[in-house]
């Protein structure tokens, strides 16, 4: 466990940088975290992040498939928004735990 300063607030994160408590998250923190992978977050990015946060708040597991069915982006669009490892990257930016799903 570690502490990170995001948007002038101390945030508890795991060694890999995922939030311990998703309630600490603010959109400003996401913008700050996005600088590292060199991303500029658009309203569409935030729509995805909100979707992920809602899923986690409801206790649902996250899968790439569920995002493809969200009507926000298709899977190709999701890879475009969060290049590389999109589920991990978006989870980190959304302030939610590291995804544990295999699909």
């Amino acid at each position, binding site marked *: 466990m570690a502490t990170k300063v995001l948007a002038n607030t101390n945030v508890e994160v795991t060694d890999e940088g995922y939030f311990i408590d998703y309630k600490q998250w603010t959109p400003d923190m996401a913008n700050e975290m996005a600088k590292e992978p060199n991303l500029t977050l658009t309203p569409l990015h935030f729509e995805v992040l909100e979707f992920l946060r809602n899923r986690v708040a409801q206790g649902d*597991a996250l*899968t*790439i*498939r*569920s995002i*493809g069915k969200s009507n926000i982006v*298709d*899977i*190709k669009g*999701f*890879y475009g928004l969060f*290049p*590389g*490892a*999109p*589920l*991990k990257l978006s989870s980190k930016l959304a302030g939610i735990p590291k995804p544990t*799903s*295999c*699909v």
Partner: protein
Amino acid sequence: MQKEEFPLKKVCMICAKGTIEDVYATLVMANGAVMEGIETKVFFTFFGLDAITKKQMNKIHTSTVGNPAMRMPNGWAFPSILGMLPGVEAGVSMMMKSTMEKLDIPTVPEFFEMITAGGGEIYACKLAMDMFKLEKNDLIDEVIDVITIGDFYGLAGGQGTQIIFT
């Protein structure tokens, strides 16, 4: 001394069998690699071609004979003689697929959409296509090309590459 680790950069997978478990092993591992940002190429050959053949991809089954790990839903052994009866293999396969659906595991066509949406590449084996008298247009659109094993090895170059045979 610190142990040096070299992250996996590329996986090249070979799917040579056409049962549910063999095809899904390939698809889950391939999609998982794509999800991690690992360059992914999948080569389908022999009975594995069923997974990318339009007519067959939704009909893949698990084998109910000669499979000692096959059990009844209550845990009892599944006698091979029962597995031989007409319809049993189809019924068991359907049960398996419905369980997977409940776990949000994609169907075979959906997996191909997901893998290619993330940049994964699908190839078919030329030799096996000739054997089974298949043409490129019998295969799903996601298949990039019909290639030889030599071409496949050509795709597998570079440091941090692994070839996985399922």
